[in-house]
């Protein structure tokens, strides 16, 4: 197959064969509305010749179907070396992933029971809760990857997710609360948090926002809780450190390797090897084992994130960040689990030392323009800080800033670390990621007010760049993008 793909020449070819089984359950209006199971099979064949990439994919994974796709790809990328024989050898990964309770061996009844438990508990907590949406989703993805360098990988990825979304209303005021759980794990995720606990968190947040005051506007100090999740690190620097954007000059961090790009208190790491996290990988989607990469070391830019294509261009090795949503997409450099490393300060003290500002307890989604570094994200749960104390809750705050400027302005870093999970979108393909940061303070950031809630569906005509969505229930019911009309 690979030889057929390279018959017209080319420097590199690979094939990605996938079989994915998914199941999704959606509960709304106090009943199980949807229960979907799906089988997706397909293969993508890629040929790289110099700067050009040809990619063909098909659902027809018969020998003829694959040969046809290989030929299509070979005609689209020509030139370069001659075909040589390729001996495949299996690549092993040091990353171990243990799934205790495989979702394909858990009955539908048991999955439905968890969903109903969260729904029932959320609805029992307060009469102001008007709507509860609960979603469960799991994926078992088997992949085979082979390339013309002779690497061969077989991998199985198992992921589980659970989300609870609550809507609270009091007179004309309507607010929402959200909580999610997920990982490269099976049904054992519920040992970390029960459906009832997740429901409780979502409901508490929605009720709190009912009594919250509108967020203040303007520049102020912002303290982000260690529980807040890492939307900021994902947007403020994560996307800008992806090598494809850097090489094209589309990142504010391009050309700054070795330079001070952040406060010395800041160390940024992308780590695909952390056990059980939502962005953890045994292998990336090019068959490279997951790695831990220090991107910013005490303020100094030390590395970008590479896939094979971008690494080849610089004559270096991939960092294990070549990821794709499915066989329908060509791999591009993507984050895995991205975090700002914990510091050594007591989080309480950081708040105490802040005279006036905003305390962000939970972040929502965000978006970044990597070219100029401007980003925005919304605050799902925020409070006013006055004289070193956390006061009333505020709703509708969004934070607007510029990545490099904000990283320089981080002046306090706590000794805690908290994760959040999400689906990261780039070039129209979503991959599972997690992000984390410790409690930290940004000396000054623009706060905009009067919005709130965690929107989910992106408008059809959104721009380029990267954006992080928190997982919606609808997403759990549909695997892959599969839209016939996409940009």
């Amino acid at each position, binding site marked *: 197959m690979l030889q057929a793909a390279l018959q017209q020449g080319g420097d590199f070819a690979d094939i990605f064969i996938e079989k994915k089984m998914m199941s999704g359950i959606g509960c709304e209006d106090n009943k199980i509305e949807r229960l979907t199971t799906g089988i997706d099979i397909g293969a993508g064949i890629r040929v790289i010749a110099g700067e*050009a990439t040809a990619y063909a994919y098909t659902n027809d994974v018969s020998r003829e179907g694959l040969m046809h*796709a290989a030929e299509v790809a070979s005609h*689209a990328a020509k030139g370069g070396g001659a075909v040589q024989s390729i001996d495949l050898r299996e690549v092993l990964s040091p990353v171990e992933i243990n799934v205790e309770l495989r979702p394909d061996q858990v009955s539908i009844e048991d999955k439905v029971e968890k969903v109903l438990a969260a729904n029932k508990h959320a609805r029992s907590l307060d009469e102001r809760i008007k709507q509860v949406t609960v979603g469960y989703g799991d994926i078992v993805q088997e992949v085979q990857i082979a390339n013309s360098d002779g690497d061969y990988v077989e991998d199985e990825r198992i992921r589980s997710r659970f989300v609870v979304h609550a809507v609270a209303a009091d007179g004309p005021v309507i607010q929402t609360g959200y909580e999610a759980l997920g990982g490269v794990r099976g049904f054992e995720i519920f040992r970390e948090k029960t459906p009832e606990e997740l429901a409780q968190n979502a409901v508490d947040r929605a009720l709190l926002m009912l009594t919250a005051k509108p967020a203040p506007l303007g520049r102020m100090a912002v303290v982000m809780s260690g529980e807040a999740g890492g939307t900021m690190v994902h947007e403020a620097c994560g996307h800008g450190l992806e090598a494809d954007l850097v090489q094209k000059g589309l990142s504010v961090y391009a050309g700054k390797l070795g330079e001070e790009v952040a406060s010395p208190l800041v160390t940024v790491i992308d780590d695909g090897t952390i056990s059980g996290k939502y962005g953890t990988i045994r292998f990336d989607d090019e068959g490279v084992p997951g790695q831990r990469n220090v991107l910013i070391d005490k303020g100094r830019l030390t590395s970008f994130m590479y896939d094979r294509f971008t690494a080849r261009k610089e004559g270096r090795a991939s960092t294990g960040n070549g990821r794709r949503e499915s066989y329908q997409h060509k791999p591009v450099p993507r984050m895995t689990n991205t975090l700002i490393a914990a510091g050594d300060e007591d989080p309480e003290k950081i708040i105490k030392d802040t005279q006036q500002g905003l305390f962000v307890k939970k972040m929502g989604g965000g978006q970044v323009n990597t070219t100029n570094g401007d*980003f925005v994200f919304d605050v799902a749960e925020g409070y006013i800080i006055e004289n070193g104390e956390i006061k009333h809750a505020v709703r*509708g705050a969004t934070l607007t800033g510029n990545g490099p400027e904000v990283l320089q302005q981080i002046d306090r870093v706590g000794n805690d670390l908290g994760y959040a999970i999400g689906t990261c979108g780039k070039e129209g393909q979503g991959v599972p990621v997690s992000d984390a940061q410790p409690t930290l303070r940004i000396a000054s950031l*623009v706060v*905009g007010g009067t919005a709130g809630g965690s929107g989910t569906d992106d408008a059809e005509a*959104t721009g380029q760049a990267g954006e992080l969505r928190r997982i919606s229930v609808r997403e759990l019911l549909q695997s892959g993008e599969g839209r016939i009309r996409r940009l």
Partner: protein
Amino acid sequence: MFAMGELARQMVERAQSKGAQLSEAYGLDSKDLTIEVSKGVVETMKLAEDRGIGIRVFKAGKMGYAYTSDLSEAAVESTVDRALANAAFTGEDPFWRLPDKVNQYPQVDTYDPAIAQVSVERKIELAKEIEATARATDPRVKITERSSYQDAEYNVTVVNSQGIDATYRGAYCGAYAYLVAEEKGDNQTGFSLSYGLHFEDIDPKKIGREAAAKAVRMLGAKSVPSRRVPVVFDPYVTTQILGIVAPALTAEAVQKGKSLFAGKVGQSIASGKVSIIDDGLLPGRIQSAPFDGEGVPTSRTILIEEGQLKGFLYNTYTAAKDGAASTGNGSRGSFRGTPDVGTTNFYLEAGDVAPDDLIGQISSGLYVTEVMGMHTANPISGDFSVGAAGILIEKGRLTTPVRGVAIAGNLLEWLDRIDGIGNDLTFFIGKGAPTVRIKEMAISGN
């Protein structure tokens, strides 16, 4: 193409014979071509074939769904069986039904055979011409993030146990450019796109010029102090805001208490200048089709007329619940999901004022050309706060570029405060809007 109709009929028959009261198969078979050019060479060429089928079954008032892109006999049979098994666990609902047989579907132009006949070389040339035009427009256009051509051809098949057995073929094509202009270490992006049913309608020079002009005019952008001023939104940003309004105009959102328009039919909910329409029959638009994802004929639905809320979009289920008729908005983007209520060609009707005149009447204001984080707007309360960039309006003219500001508001207030609508309705894929002017909004900056 593949015999999807036959497969769909077999699946429906199997479901019915195994005890389904109602069943429906939806098949999609598509081919896509994407060409991306940078620095005058093809950077990526992608050819894709995607096909699969999903089946919805109803048994004792309960719905189950399963899909597969493995079209082998065994996989297809097990997909029907899984759908039936799934139906055992969902909630009972008296409003589940499937549409009846339709004798005549509307004639809609969806397929131009010319797209497939144009050579790949010519399509590559088109993508190259966009980039070349952009670079020739201004020397400060330094980076092409993407200059791209794309087309697709697809077959949609719907078969149900009520007698619907329908199929249509569609195709569309389009091109877009994302560029970066650079000056004194400052990088700014610009983009432009054009999608339609006909290859001849794509104007690569216009796309290139527009994307270049948009990037260049943002060079040197800075934040400004907070202020309350009139704000003009360009068609692209207005369309993004409409993207948040659209879900709230579906009966699904209303019935679940998630729409800010619930209970307001007949009321004035927007400025008298505002009319919003969904039209699945609009000639020349790529979301037009003879029928929706359930086989119901598409239609033109006026949602807001001169500020007054007229009604909502329906699929078969939400229509049954309200005792209404489906508006042909049972949308499904893929065989991988069940039909939701969705839009077809959804747009804010054009006014009669030239965009320049909308700006010309403002002594101090902001022209917004980019918003970030629109997807974080709260679709229930309508509150939004987004990062924004654009150009200052001073004495009726566009002057200095602005970025790093936030604008906040509420969708209902936004609709109500529209005091001018341009005559420049522009479509971005499935949604479109003209330039609009808002009387006054808060801008937070430095």
